[in-house]
């Protein structure tokens, strides 16, 4: 047919639309309509000609009586589109009504106009929703809104609404739910968000309904409706939406609405997703509901208790200290009920009612929490108990109610007291920290040869490099409790004097981070003791170390630190340490007493002590947005003469504003408009922290403006650095934004650019970032080189692969060169040493993560990083970076919260994610030899030789490792085999193992081949990049409690042991080949055969003993066989 058209006798295409345009001027309306029709068909080709007749076409549209006026509008719209006048095009497209076909894909015109329409709608609808409680300080929005300010709150153009509604409908028809969800979020259409997730419309809700009412309607629907008959993707949509909340929603207020909605929907799922729910609630700062949720789970079945533990772990990881404290306080029974609980489980239920009553009744605000913390603590659990009693206004429940609930619950609640204790152990942070410590000790791979090499390369009198090595060592061993190097080099260490001594002592805190149990003992010889006066520098450093050990979990040392602060008298150095420690330990606790004591130190107006006190105040109130604190701090900053204090106060205010986004605009503006450049510096940091991890355009614009227009170089540097924080949830974007600034003529701006990229792309190994920083590492200015090296280390920490040719390997070479080069500037060498410490941080088992998996910001990490970037002015702030270090661990726990022997699969060749090869002992000699002349050719040859050796060694390692894997993999398979009714699954497992071992053998012989997967053993090191390839080994005894939320057997059914075995069998088979959903951190494991004895891992000894001084890897345990009788 089409051929016929083409070959139609000499019918050429027309070359002009003038004929049709002429018809527009005919008198007869039919002919005009005809002309419009024909023109509409050729508008894509002849728009230029038609454009000249636009006035006529527009007039036709204006003519109300003309029946083809919509056609005229469509034509005009298309012409305007071609002319690039999208605004006019949209106006006429709206006029075209239904003729504008939203579902016409593949049309550039429709796509562009839809995008425009949606943008327009978003702006208008956002203005509508903002209209009710309009915040005056919404600076960037205001600029746009100013034009239509009088229209604010006015209804959106109904035609636009109709168009967008049609677009939503067409999205739903084509099952593009995610797209609809995205647009709904952008436009703040809560009802459509609801619809996209649940596929249900909310009745009686229009687009103009206030958000709160929509939330209420959704809740009402939830009460009335049955559980959602989910398409299997409802959970996926929920997750998507949750992620979007963290990454794309700019307005705090709307985010709260969406989160509330999500909680409602989570409740309606056939199997409610408690983790998601608690995450939402955590973000909403709703401690009462979280407590009630935990309470309910704690009383539930075994699986539900595991979930409760999982929720608790997440809370500790993501929540602020204040929030966790509030949840704990709400969960803990008042003393009377607790007494009852020890006897009968009925009493425990009574406590549950009490907690709920408290949740319903007492409005616990920030003041409430402050009061909680104000009580003098003795021992953590006891404190919490007492304060809970103090703050809970609800009387203990009548015993009758308790009895009733007890009867209903029946025997389901097993040992509630012990469960409670377990949960408390998690919530207090005690267990997670201990487990992380355990993981880091167990897997410590610190390569001391690197340190030795650095020590040898640096001339002994260079104090700057000396203290840099001490810092680097602290970072390399962060959390591993291994201080062998320090102990072996005591006389070398003794060269540190004054503030270097302070830092050196503080570095102990980094090494023993989280080592709560023995902290006091370890630091005993350094801490200030009455009567004895050691060096104030080591005393202050030791206090600081104590703070670092207890960072963000300060309850155990709170009173000690307060006491130390009071006893320090007028010794500035000790005060400095104590203030920093107090800030660290009580970070974000909003502890009023600590705040006041710090303030008292501040008002003494001593530069050194005041600086730390100001920072400490900020840390204690971190993220609270407290207006009082900000006022006091800014007022004092204006009073004092000391620049150190002003700077610390400005930074402190910035920390207080952490995460407050729009609410912080007033404070930020007042700081940025200040005459004092140090306060403007704080303003830049305030922008960074208030909008950290939001990628808000308005904030980025403001920062860029400061970065190019401020007169002070410090402010410009801070502003550029701030970009990194704002964009840290969007690492790929940062290098592009910073690109131009990195080529600035101003070295401070360039330095800021390195830091911005380092912070935003930390731990990602982002390629663009690396390339940019590599180029900057050869900058002509020494501190820019320093920044580039440190930033590269931040980016490449724990990146894979780690071979000598990888980017990380190249950086290592670059660092070696910078450190050993005597002619390199001291600042650059300082940076290089610090960078090598960061690159190998935490025994090569930690990474830097400023946001969690779901894109939630981590307060300690971000604040720690922000303070770290201030090492520019004060080197003792370097240890703050340890707050951002996160173990790359996957730790499986059973119901007793112990680590069982358990393995899972990583579907990638082992070498992909292997540790970097250790520095060979010869390297030590080589570095020392550099002083003597070495020809470049021979150096090259040596390098090649070394590379070859390393390869060989790696191969050997691989072979060994593979053998181990084979041996150990055999064990669980054997144990499974013994389990009745699971033979089939076990068969599958053992055949998988056999396949693995076969592959391994080939790999060992053939050199080139590697097994395509490896088994990782609990607790395992899992790199962020590795998370995509993890899966559960089919048929293993333990299954993660978080699984694909598919319809699974009702939890209640798993009652009797026999039924349990059957269910477990079913569960086991369905779990076969499951993707592991929880990819890092703590994973609660469901034991499929609870009757079997469990094999647990022995706790590893802490301290330096775990790492032999020479660099050999620990010998693998001998293969063994597990027999059931054991």
């Amino acid at each position, binding site marked *: 047919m089409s051929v016929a058209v083409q070959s139609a006798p000499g*019918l*050429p295409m027309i070359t002009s639309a003038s004929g049709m345009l002429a018809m527009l001027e005919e008198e007869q309306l039919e002919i005009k309509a005809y002309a419009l029709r024909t023109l509409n068909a*050729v508008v894509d080709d002849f728009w230029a000609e038609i454009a000249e007749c636009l006035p006529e076409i527009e007039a036709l549209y204006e003519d109300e009586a003309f029946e083809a006026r919509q056609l005229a509008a469509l034509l005009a719209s298309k012409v305007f589109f071609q002319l690039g006048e999208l605004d006019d095009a949209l106006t006429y497209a709206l006029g075209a009504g239904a003729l504008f076909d939203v579902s016409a894909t593949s049309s550039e015109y429709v796509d562009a106009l839809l995008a425009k329409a949606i943008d327009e709608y978003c702006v208008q609808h956002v203005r509508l929703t903002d209209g009710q409680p309009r915040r005056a300080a919404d600076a960037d929005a205001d600029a746009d809104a100013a034009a239509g300010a009088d229209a604010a709150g006015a209804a959106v153009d109904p035609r636009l609404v109709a168009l967008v509604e049609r677009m939503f409908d067409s999205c739903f028809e084509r099952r593009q739910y995610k797209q609809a969800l995205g647009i709904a979020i952008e436009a703040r259409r809560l009802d459509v968000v609801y619809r996209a997730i649940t596929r249900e419309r909310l009745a009686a809700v229009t687009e103009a309904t206030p958000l709160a009412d929509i939330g209420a309607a959704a809740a009402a629907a939830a009460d009335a409706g049955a559980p959602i008959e989910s398409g299997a993707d409802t959970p996926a949509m929920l997750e998507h939406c949750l992620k979007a909340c963290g990454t794309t929603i700019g307005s705090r207020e709307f985010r709260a609405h969406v989160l509330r909605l999500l909680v409602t929907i989570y409740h309606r799922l056939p199997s409610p997703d408690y983790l998601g729910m608690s995450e939402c609630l955590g973000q909403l700062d709703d401690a009462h509901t979280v407590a009630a949720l935990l309470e309910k789970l704690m009383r539930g079945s075994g699986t539900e208790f595991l979930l409760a533990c999982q929720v608790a772990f997440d809370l500790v990881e993501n929540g602020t200290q204040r929030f966790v404290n509030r949840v704990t306080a709400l969960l803990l029974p008042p003393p009377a009920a607790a007494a009852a609980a020890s006897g009968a489980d009925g009493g425990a239920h009574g406590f549950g009612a009490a907690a709920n009553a408290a949740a319903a009744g007492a409005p616990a605000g920030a003041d409430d929490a402050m009061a909680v913390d104000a009580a003098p603590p003795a021992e953590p659990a006891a404190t919490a108990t007492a304060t809970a009693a103090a703050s809970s206004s609800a009387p203990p429940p009548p015993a009758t109610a308790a009895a009733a609930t007890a009867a209903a619950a029946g025997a389901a609640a097993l040992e509630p007291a012990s469960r409670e204790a377990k949960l408390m152990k998690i919530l207090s942070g005690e267990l997670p920290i201990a487990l992380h410590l355990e993981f880091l000790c167990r897997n410590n791979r610190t390569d001391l040869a690197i340190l030795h090499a650095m020590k040898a390369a640096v001339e002994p009198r260079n104090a700057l490099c000396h203290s840099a090595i001490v810092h680097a060592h602290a970072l390399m061993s962060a959390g591993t409790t291994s201080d062998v190097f320090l102990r072996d080099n005591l006389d070398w260490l003794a060269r540190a004097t004054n503030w270097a001594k302070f830092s050196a002592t503080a570095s102990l805190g980094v090494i023993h981070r989280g080592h709560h149990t023995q902290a006091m003992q370890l630091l005993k010889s350094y801490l200030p003791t009455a009567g004895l006066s050691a060096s104030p520098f080591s005393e202050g450093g030791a206090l600081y170390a104590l703070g670092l050990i207890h960072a963000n979990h300060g309850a155990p040392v709170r009173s000690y630190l307060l006491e130390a602060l009071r006893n320090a008298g007028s010794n500035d150095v000790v005060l400095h340490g104590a203030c920093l420690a107090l800030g660290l330990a009580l970070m974000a606790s909003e502890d009023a007493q600590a705040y006041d004591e710090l303030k008292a130190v501040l008002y003494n107006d001593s530069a050194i002590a005041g600086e730390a006190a100001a920072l400490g105040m900020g840390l204690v109130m971190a993220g609270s947005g407290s207006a009082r604190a900000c006022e006091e701090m800014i007022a004092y900053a204006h009073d004092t003469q000391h620049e150190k204090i002003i700077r610390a106060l400005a930074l402190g205010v910035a920390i207080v504003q952490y995460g407050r986004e729009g609410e912080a605009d007033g404070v930020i503006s007042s700081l940025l408009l200040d005459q004092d450049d140090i306060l403007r510096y704080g303003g830049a940091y305030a922008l960074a922290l208030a909008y950290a991890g939001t990628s808000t355009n308005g904030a980025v614009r403001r920062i860029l403006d400061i970065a190019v227009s401020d007169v002070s170089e410090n402010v410009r540097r801070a502003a550029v650095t701030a970009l990194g924080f704002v964009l840290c949830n969007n690492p790929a974007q940062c290098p592009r934004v910073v690109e131009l600034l990195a080529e600035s003529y101003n070295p401070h701006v360039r330095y800021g650019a390195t830091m911005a990229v380092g912070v935003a792309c930390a731990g990602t190994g982002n390629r663009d970032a690396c390339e940019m920083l590599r180029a900057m590492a050869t900058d002509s200015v020494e501190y820019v080189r320093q920044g580039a090296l440190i930033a590269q280390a931040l980016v490449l920490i724990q990146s894979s692969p780690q071979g000598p040719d990888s980017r990380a390997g190249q950086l290592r070479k670059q660092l070696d060169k910078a450190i050993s080069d005597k002619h390199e500037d001291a600042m650059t060498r300082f940076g290089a040493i610090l960078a090598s410490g960061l690159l190998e941080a935490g025994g090569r088992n930690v990474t830097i993560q400023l946001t969690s998996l779901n894109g939630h910001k981590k307060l300690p990490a971000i604040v720690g990083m922000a303070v770290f970037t201030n090492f520019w002015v004060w080197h003792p702030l370097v240890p703050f970076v340890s707050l951002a270090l996160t173990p790359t661990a996957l730790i499986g726990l059973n119901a007793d919260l112990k680590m069982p022997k358990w393995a899972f699969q990583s579907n990638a060749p082992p070498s992909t994610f292997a540790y970097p090869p250790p520095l060979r002992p010869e390297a030590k000699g080589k570095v020392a030899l550099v002083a003597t002349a070495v020809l470049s050719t021979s150096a090259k040859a040596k390098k090649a030789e070394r590379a070859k050796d390393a390869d060989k060694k790696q191969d050997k390692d691989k072979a060994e490792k593979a053998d181990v894997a084979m041996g150990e993999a055999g064990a669980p398979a054997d144990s499974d085999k013994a389990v009745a009714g699971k033979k089939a699954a076990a068969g599958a497992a053992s055949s998988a193992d056999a396949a693995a071992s076969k592959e391994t053998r080939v790999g060992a012989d053939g050199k080139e081949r590697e097994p395509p997967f490896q088994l990782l053993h609990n607790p395992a090191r899992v790199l962020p990049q590795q998370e995509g390839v993890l899966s559960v080994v089919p048929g293993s005894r333990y299954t993660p409690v978080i699984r694909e939320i598919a319809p699974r057997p009702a939890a209640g059914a798993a009652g009797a042991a026999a039924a349990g075995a059957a269910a477990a069998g079913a569960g086991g088979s369905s779990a076969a080949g499951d993707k592991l959903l929880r990819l890092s951190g703590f994973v609660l494991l469901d034991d499929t055969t609870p009757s079997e004895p469990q094999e647990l891992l022995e706790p590893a000894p802490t301290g330096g003993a775990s790492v032999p001084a020479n660099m050999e890897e620990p010998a693998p345990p001998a293969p063994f066989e597990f027999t059931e009788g054991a």
Partner: protein
Amino acid sequence: MEAKLRTAVTLFEAFKKEYDSPTCDVDKCTAMLNTLKLRMTEFTSLPPFSGPASPTMQQELMLAREILEHAALLSIRMRDIPAFERYVAQLKVYYNDFATALPMSQRQYPVLGLNLLRLLAQNRTAEFHTELELIPPALHDANIYIKYPTQLEQYIMEGSFNKVLNARADGLYSREGEYFMSMLTETVREEIATCSEKAYKSMSAEHACNMLMLPTLPELSAYVEQRGWTMSNGLITFKQSSDKVLELPSMRLIHETLSYAKELERIV
């Protein structure tokens, strides 16, 4: 389609009969033409042509062309210039884009020639030349319908206004062209008047009468009034054209330069 075409053809025959008759009733013709135009909108093969070729395409196109040609001529008869322009615009598609697909129409050059004449009469010289370019150069002299307006244009360019007036009498476009020719005279007069304004400060009435080709003095005085000149004692004084003073937008330039300088300062 066939049927529609046939009714259209019948209607057109009737229209032609009326149009060609010496006692042509213009209103009746217009009414019939309007019906015909409506019929035309139902044709499927008219430009912009899309879809499969229909067997009646050739006939449809030819009929449409003929209708439009007649409509153009009729519009001149009714002194409706905009309508004439519209029809010519529509016809061009047939003359240009469909030149290879259809046999040449015998009215093509008369219509085009009339169009040229119209442009000339309206003093739209630029467009006149654009149109002329579209006609093969060989025809400029060979085809009498084209040659006539071409020559007229040359006379005007030369300033040989007499020849223009003489040509008017030639009567090639006896019926349709007459209207345009009188328009052309007006145009020429305007041209002369404009030139005189620039060239002289004043002029005697007789001289002016002669120059402007106005037969009597009263006509002259009417014309003088129309142009806004003054006449006293047989002397016409032309109005002085006010010279525009060129002004430099200095403030704006200063402002812009300063802002560029500021922007340059801010480059990082």
